[in-house]
């Protein structure tokens, strides 16, 4: 374990040329001109088009499936059903683990007998055109017999409830126990207990899932696909029954992910169809396919019981979490664990008990979504802080100040975070920055809310995460970075470029990043869990520093100066205070090349490796580090219509060190908008397991009209475990937004709506005292 961050230590006198500057991202020109090819833009000669036939019922038995008419249709190349497939399953666990036992989470690829969710695939079709594939789909005859289902997690836990799969509906449990919970409540002057509920949320990335697969001359199944995770190649290979080295995944710049392209989407269908037909196959989900075809954000039921002294010191916290895992496991156990670890929020709670359970239902399966359980926890713990403050009659920020976890203090799992904990500073700054309060007028009431948070970046440390990057220099002085990292829109590739040129002293126009190919770029792991910059950024930095070391050694020899006196900057090499000693970067590289000095390096970065948490108490190290910050909101609530308008939105995060401040601000502004949708308008509504909101006209993500100008205040403690002291910001940007809005609405109307989203209807009902 590294030593805790000392906030009083002098920060290194770092003079950065490229890192920390708002450089235009390497991917920006292609995107602005429409030249960037997305996965859906690739075509091949002789390509077939695929469709997936899905179950319209959420819980049923497939009693008949007749594909003979579809197979007979002219232009149909192949129709696959479960009967045609070997007895294989699609794994749904986190990829890339070493030495860990996989959870029993496998899913049938196509329905064999039992349908478990609305949208579960019954058959795959490959045809000469999309039109023919659609016609074939309509020619498939099937009978589904309704089967008893269960559609909410509380019912699913009751004895006698229909079992979704396996022996019972309990998908996972986690517990955290710390201190003496009974003594903590006994010491309290008041106990406040509330239950909060969150909803199913859809990622709604703008680019629906899409891919193109073909089998090459070496019998390798190649798949060009929009994904956050190229390393699913192993599981895809297992699912179709070929060795791992016979599946190659090539990404493309991804049209948005947010966790929704973290699991396998189209890949197995494509691999099967390409393998069975011997022809290239393209599959593009429609928006409706996308809505029913990938996992959602987990709805959570969060019950918080807080014991507090009159002076605001929290003496005990008892948390119960129930999440709806839907019909298949996917990442539910991990999302639940994140929720349990995040449950107390950024506060020092000495007497803590968390009981968390994830439950299977016949709803859509749930999996990764930006915030990954931590966001749901924040919705509850930050509303609970306001409820506790109100109950004991002290200021909301004062209550928080009384309880913030401070630098060096232990988190819920007893882990002392190695970096700066600047929660209080962030919260105070964000709150101040709201400025003068907008006056209320007529039926319009104004309210303010704040939410602080603690959010991990990097994967669970017991997963033993690693990431690789390769950096090389060419004889003309240009730089190449190769890494498997997928770029899902946050500038992941561009950040690697900035890091490499910072270390090597060349300029942005002289670097190219090649990424996202499971066969030829070094494996970097997933672009998930706010880990890409932390893990791959560190790998790129280490690789670039190794190359730099060799170049500088050679330059020092040429100049006759110590290595520490060699300066690399602006594509030039020079010696400190020796204007006569200089050469171009390209000349130095050529010199190295002629002498056979290695001009490249493959580096692996390893996160801390730990054991699993203690199963009984949840104590131990779970993550390498956390990001801290806060979001402050001012809303206007129309008490006649119930409409909530966000007037002011201020974020203050300690990101450690910005690599590209423009990209950091972009993450924060985007997180603010997604968080606003989470709070106010977005909900995937399932009625008895059937999706009622299958399009963007029913599922309402914020538009340019809905979101205010977001003020981003970025602090840099330079204390993170990422490159140059960076922390992660991808998920943290979203986490505090929804509870801050919920707190602002409660402040405005004097009543709290405990379940998201806070729709106009709920506001009006609350104002009229209707439950």
């Amino acid at each position, binding site marked *: 374990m590294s030593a805790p961050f000392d906030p009083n230590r002098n920060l290194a006198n770092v003079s950065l040329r490229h890192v920390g500057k708002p450089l235009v*991202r390497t991917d920006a020109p292609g995107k*602005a001109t*429409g030249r960037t090819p997305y996965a859906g833009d690739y075509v091949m000669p002789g390509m077939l088009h695929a469709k997936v036939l899905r179950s319209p019922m959420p819980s049923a038995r497939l009693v008949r499936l007749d594909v003979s008419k579809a197979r007979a249709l002219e232009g149909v190349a192949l129709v696959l059903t479960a009967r045609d497939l070997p007895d294989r399953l699609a794994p749904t666990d986190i990829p890339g683990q070493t030495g860990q036992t996989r959870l029993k989470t496998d899913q049938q690829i196509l329905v064999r007998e039992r349908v478990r969710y609305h949208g579960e695939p019954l058959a795959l079709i490959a045809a000469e055109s999309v039109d023919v594939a659609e016609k074939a789909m309509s020619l498939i005859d099937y009978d589904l017999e309704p089967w008893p289902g269960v559609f909410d997690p509380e019912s699913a836990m009751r004895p006698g409830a229909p079992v979704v799969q396996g022996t019972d509906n309990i998908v996972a449990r986690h517990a955290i126990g710390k201190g003496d919970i009974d003594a903590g409540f006994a010491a309290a002057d008041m106990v406040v207990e509330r239950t909060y509920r969150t909803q199913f949320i859809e*990622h709604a990335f703008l680019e629906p899932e899409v891919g193109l697969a073909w089998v090459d001359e070496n019998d390798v199944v190649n798949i060009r696909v929009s994904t956050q995770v190229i390393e699913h190649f192993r599981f895809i290979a297992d699912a179709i029954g070929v060795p791992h080295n016979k599946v190659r995944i090539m990404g493309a*710049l991804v049209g948005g992910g947010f966790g929704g392209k973290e699991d396998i989407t189209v890949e197995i269908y494509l691999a099967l169809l390409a393998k069975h037909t011997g022809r290239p196959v393209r599959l593009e989900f429609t928006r409706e396919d996308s809505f029913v075809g990938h996992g959602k954000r987990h709805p959570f039921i969060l019950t918080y019981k807080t014991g507090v002294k009159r002076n605001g010191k929290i003496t005990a916290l008892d948390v119960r979490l129930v999440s709806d895992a839907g019909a298949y496991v996917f990442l539910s156990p991990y999302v639940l664990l994140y929720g349990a670890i995040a449950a107390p929020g950024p506060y020092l709670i000495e007497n803590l008990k968390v009981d968390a359970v994830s439950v299977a239902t016949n709803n859509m399966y749930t999996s990764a979504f930006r915030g990954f359980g931590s966001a749901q926890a924040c919705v509850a713990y930050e509303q609970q802080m306001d409820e506790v403050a109100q109950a004991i009659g002290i200021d909301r920020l004062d209550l928080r100040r009384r309880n913030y976890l401070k630098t060096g203090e232990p988190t819920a799992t007893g882990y002392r975070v190695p970096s700066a904990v600047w929660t209080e500073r962030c919260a105070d700054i964000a709150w101040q920055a709201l400025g003068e309060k907008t006056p209320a007028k007529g039926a319009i009431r104004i309210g303010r809310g704040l939410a602080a948070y603690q959010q991990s970046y990097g994967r669970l440390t017991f997963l033993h995460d690693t990431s690789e990057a390769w950096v090389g220099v060419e004889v003309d002085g240009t730089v190449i970075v190769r890494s498997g990292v997928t770029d899902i*829109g946050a500038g992941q590739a561009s950040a690697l470029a900035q890091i490499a040129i910072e270390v090597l002293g060349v300029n942005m126009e002289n670097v190219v990043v090649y990424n996202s190919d499971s066969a030829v770029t070094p494996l970097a792991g997933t672009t998930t869990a706010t880990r890409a910059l932390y893990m791959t950024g560190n790998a790129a930095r280490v690789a670039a520093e190794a190359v730099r070391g060799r170049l500088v050694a050679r330059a020092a020899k040429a100049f006759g100066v110590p290595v520490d006196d060699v300066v690399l900057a602006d594509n030039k090499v020079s010696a400190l205070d020796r204007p006569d000693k200089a050469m171009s970067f390209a000349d130095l590289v050529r010199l190295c090349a002629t002498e056979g000095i290695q001009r490249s390096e493959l580096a692996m970065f390893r996160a801390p490796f730990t054991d699993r948490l203690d199963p009984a108490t949840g104590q131990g190290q779970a993550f390498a580090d956390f990001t801290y910050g806060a979001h402050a909101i001012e809303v206007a609530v129309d008490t006649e219509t119930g409409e909530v308008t966000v007037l002011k939105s201020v974020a203050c995060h300690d990101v450690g060190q910005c690599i590209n401040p423009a990209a950091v601000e972009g993450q924060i502004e985007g997180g603010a908008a997604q968080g606003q949708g989470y709070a106010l308008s977005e909900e995937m509504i399932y009625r008895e397991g059937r999706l009622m909101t299958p399009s*963007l006209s029913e599922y309402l993500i914020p538009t*340019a009209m809905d979101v205010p*100008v977001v003020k981003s205040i970025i602090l840099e403690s330079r204390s993170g475990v990422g490159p140059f002291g960076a922390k992660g910001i991808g998920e943290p940007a979203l986490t505090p937004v929804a509870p801050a809005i919920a707190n602002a609405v409660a402040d405005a109307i004097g009543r709290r709506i405990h379940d998201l989203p806070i729709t106009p209807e709920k506001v009006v009902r609350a104002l009229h005292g209707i439950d």
Partner: protein
Amino acid sequence: MPTVNLTVNGKAVSANVEARTLLVNLLREQLGLTGTHVGCDTSQCGACVVHVDGKSVKACTLLAVQANGSKVTTIEGLASGDKLHPMQEAFREHHGLQCGFCTPGMVMSAVCLAQNHPNLTEKDVREGLEGNLCRCTGYHNIVQAVLAGAQAMRR
């Protein structure tokens, strides 16, 4: 199959299409202009916005045959050679994009908006882009880019 004749990005184009072929499919699949994106099937997202006779149009709401005889401009036709259109330059410079999937539609809508509003305000931009969804940026930088791009277009 009906034949459509139109001018796309300044070039005369003739294509055989099915009567029900959408303009966006003609552009993407037959003409290979993949900068125009499809993000939904319900005309909500605006990723497919192009200009038809100078007006911004969601290319998924128009049949290819309806565009017969029209002048169509897509994102690929906006730049002059290597020189970006001022609106593209503004999106690049002001970080008005992240994943980039909505960007072509945003840029095309923005160009039209700037042409129709000589004194474009932030409110005009937000109202004018309501039919273009973005899930990454929170719109802030897009709005800034459009305001800057509109100003540059007037120069």
